[in-house]
């Protein structure tokens, strides 16, 4: 199905995809701001600004906008990631205008009242404390900090506690004003509408909003680490977790698809859909060599499509009777096997088939289809998504071997171990 793609004179990017199978529309507004835009001292600002976007404008006061959407049966939410912040409403088709008006308004008119900032500070600290209860969050945070020297990818999206305690209302408002402008946003819609008429309505709502200055970005490319870094995170519990995080590549890199296939072979296919479940990974190489051999009770891998090179990570839940060093040796053995000999063509064919199936499942949801329209634009353009399966199918066994050699070297990784207090050091 064709996508109407255009840009308004104020710089707002628009992508519209008609899908007439069901009377539903999903409307997304993406802002090109995430934790990669946060200097030290302001970590967590993008996520906090996202929270403040629910605290009201003149037209949609706090406590009103959520009711208005919910009353119409809408499914709506917002999310902040390292590269982006996104807001969406999926609603019965005839009701979607409310979502359009709301997003056009809060793109530039949010209040940021001081008392609302104060009460949201404790909410966000509570959100962070909830994360801290999870050992994998604690390990992730330490591994990420070690993985970059300067790049803001080094901190978690939620932000560091000291910054959440000290950031001011003006810090947040300035962050909002700096990044929230039509020329830094993407409006993406999929569903049961007429594109020309919808475009007309979008022009009415956004046409008068002036473009802002081009945002300044703090993120700078960072050289690869020169040697492996190791971190140990201590905390409560009995279970040991291991995380290997390799410096990966950005989503536009020609090798992205080869590394995706390597991930699929090692740890099962990463599911890039966010509104549709993934597949099991029990026949993947790492499951076979770690879980089936009783070194671990679970393993997963994750490669994400990002603007700058982020991390390819492998997370292992250790078997209670094993030592961390044995598990790490087995992990390294599997990676070396992929580096030493190219995979069989049938393994590649299987990775492609798995991705085809994931695409078919993802297309059941209008919300997921609208998600892709905007998400792909953040790091490349929508054609990236449209060509995904084709480019995956073009990957050769030699490409996978080369990607494994280039990106899965121990020198470019952080190896983290979550070591529960009171449990003897396994290594």
């Amino acid at each position, binding site marked *: 199905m064709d996508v109407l793609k255009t840009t308004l004179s104020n710089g707002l990017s628009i992508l519209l995809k008609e899908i007439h199978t069901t009377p539903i529309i999903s409307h997304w507004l993406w802002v090109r701001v995430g934790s990669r835009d946060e200097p030290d001292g302001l970590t967590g600002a993008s996520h906090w600004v996202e929270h403040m976007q629910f605290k009201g404008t003149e037209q949609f006061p706090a406590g009103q906008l959520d009711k208005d959407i919910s009353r119409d049966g*809408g499914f709506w939410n917002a999310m902040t990631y390292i590269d982006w912040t996104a807001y969406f409403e999926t609603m019965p088709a005839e009701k979607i205008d409310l979502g359009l008006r709301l997003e056009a308004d809060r793109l530039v008119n949010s209040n940021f009242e001081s008392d609302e900032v104060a009460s949201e500070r404790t909410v966000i600290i509570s959100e962070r404390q909830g994360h801290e209860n999870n050992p994998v969050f604690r390990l992730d945070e330490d591994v990420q900090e070690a993985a970059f020297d300067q790049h803001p990818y080094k901190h978690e999206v939620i932000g560091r506690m000291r910054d959440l305690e000290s950031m001011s209302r003006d810090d947040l408002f300035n962050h909002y004003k700096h990044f929230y402008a039509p020329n830094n946003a993407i409006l993406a819609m999929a569903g049961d509408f007429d594109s020309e008429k919808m475009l007309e309505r979008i022009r009415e709502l956004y046409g008068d909003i002036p473009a802002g200055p081009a945002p300044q970005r703090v993120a700078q490319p960072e050289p690869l680490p020169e040697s492996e870094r190791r971190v140990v995170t201590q905390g409560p519990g009995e279970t040991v977790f291991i995380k290997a995080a390799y410096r990966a590549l950005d989503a536009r890199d020609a090798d992205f698809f080869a590394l995706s296939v390597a991930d699929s072979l090692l740890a099962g296919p990463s599911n890039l859909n966010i509104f549709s479940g993934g597949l099991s990974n029990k026949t993947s190489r790492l499951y076979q060599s770690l879980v089936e051999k009783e070194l671990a009770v679970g393993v997963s891998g994750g490669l994400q499509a990002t603007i700058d090179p982020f991390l390819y990570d492998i997370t292992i839940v250790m078997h209670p009777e094993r030592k961390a060093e044995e598990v790490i040796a087995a992990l390294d053995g599997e990676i070396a096997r992929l580096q030493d000999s190219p995979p069989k063509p049938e393994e590649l064919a299987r990775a492609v088939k798995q991705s085809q199936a994931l695409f078919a499942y993802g297309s059941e949801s209008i919300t997921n289809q609208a998600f892709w329209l905007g998400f792909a634009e953040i790091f490349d353009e929508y054609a990236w998504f449209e060509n995904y399966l084709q480019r995956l199918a073009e990957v050769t066994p030699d490409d996978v071997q080369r990607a494994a050699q280039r990106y899965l070297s121990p020198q470019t990784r952080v190896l983290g171990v979550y070591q529960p207090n009171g449990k003897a050091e396994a290594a």
Partner: protein
Amino acid sequence: MSAARKSSSIPGSDDITRVELANGIVVLARHNPNSLAVTLRGYLQAGSLFDPDDKLGLADFTADALMHGTAKRNFQEIYNALESIGASFGFNSGTHTTSFGGKALAEDLPLLLDILNEGLRTPSFPAEQVKKLRAQLLTGLALRAQDTRDMAAMVFDELVYREHPYSRPDDGTVETIGAILSDDLADFHRQVYGPRGMVIAVAGGIPAEQAVEQVRAALEDWANPEQAAPPELPAWQPLEERVSKRHVIPGMSQSDLVVGTAGPSRLSPDFMAANLGNSVLGRFGLMGRIGDAVREKAGLAYYAYSGLGGGLGPGAWDVAAGVNPANEQKATELIFQEITRFTSELVSEEELSDSQSNFIGSMPLSLESNGGVADAMLNMERYGLGLDYYREYPARIRAVTREQVLEAAARYLQPDKLAVAIAGPPLEP
């Protein structure tokens, strides 16, 4: 523009095929001509109600083990068949039933049915696989012991349900899981698994008649003369006073709390009034009155909402929140204030009407995917709602009055007879 056919209609008796096979299995199917994929879901009467007290987690362990080896395929071959075509499938046990589900490209439905059939009828419970699975389950329990949310929910069930089977954890304990052997799984399977009371739903890119015939070919000849009838659910004894318990997990940053008691079953005539009331209390908008009081106004929690379990028995009606340990008491007081107001005053006309509109408006969104349609068909069958339930849904929702909401609220959530369960770090003196 493509010639996609609009499937705007809500599922109903004219587009759902419902067939009862000779052995008692009920099959429900609905065709979605726009989908390349298919979802298969269902359940059978093999839940944790059958677990002996010294083998809690037996139903769950059995369900998990079904795909670790059958008479025809070993673990490797089962997952190779599924994963090599991008399909997924699994079994999972609950309190009343064991459910199963998976998805595949539509042409691969026969494979999903083969895996279902083999898992249900010829699991082999190989000792080596059972040992691996036990280690995985025990690690899961070790993680549960460190999870404030899970532990608060467990403490809540113990406080509210005491001698009732709902007080028992479906996934067992370290002691009981450690004691379950391969033979226990085989015995449980032989005594409990059977076609009587089983329901299968298929939704997606396959004509309904074809789906039914494929299910028939796979499963109509299954019989188990030994299949036990599900144990009868004993009556629940209401709490007579407010009870509370705090479970300490050292090293945590946040506490989780649950306040509530048992609510109506899904079959109860006042379920819909309770459900709409629950929306006002802790769901609508940014989580209803509870979200407004605890999160939006007081800034005490990232999450605060209420839930109504429903289900075949007296599932919980509770309010949950995650708070800084220093704020446990303050949050609990706010929650009690809201529950007291909710059980003593009518909700406003606007509040009820907002929640009614939300229920009606959001229903089509829940039916967008094949999984959503399969769940809706199972829901209608499980609770005997009739195949036109979703068509009649708006009228049923609109018929609920404010008085009915208050009556249901006051009947179940008496503020002086609630349980308060908290899991968090040691409190500072």
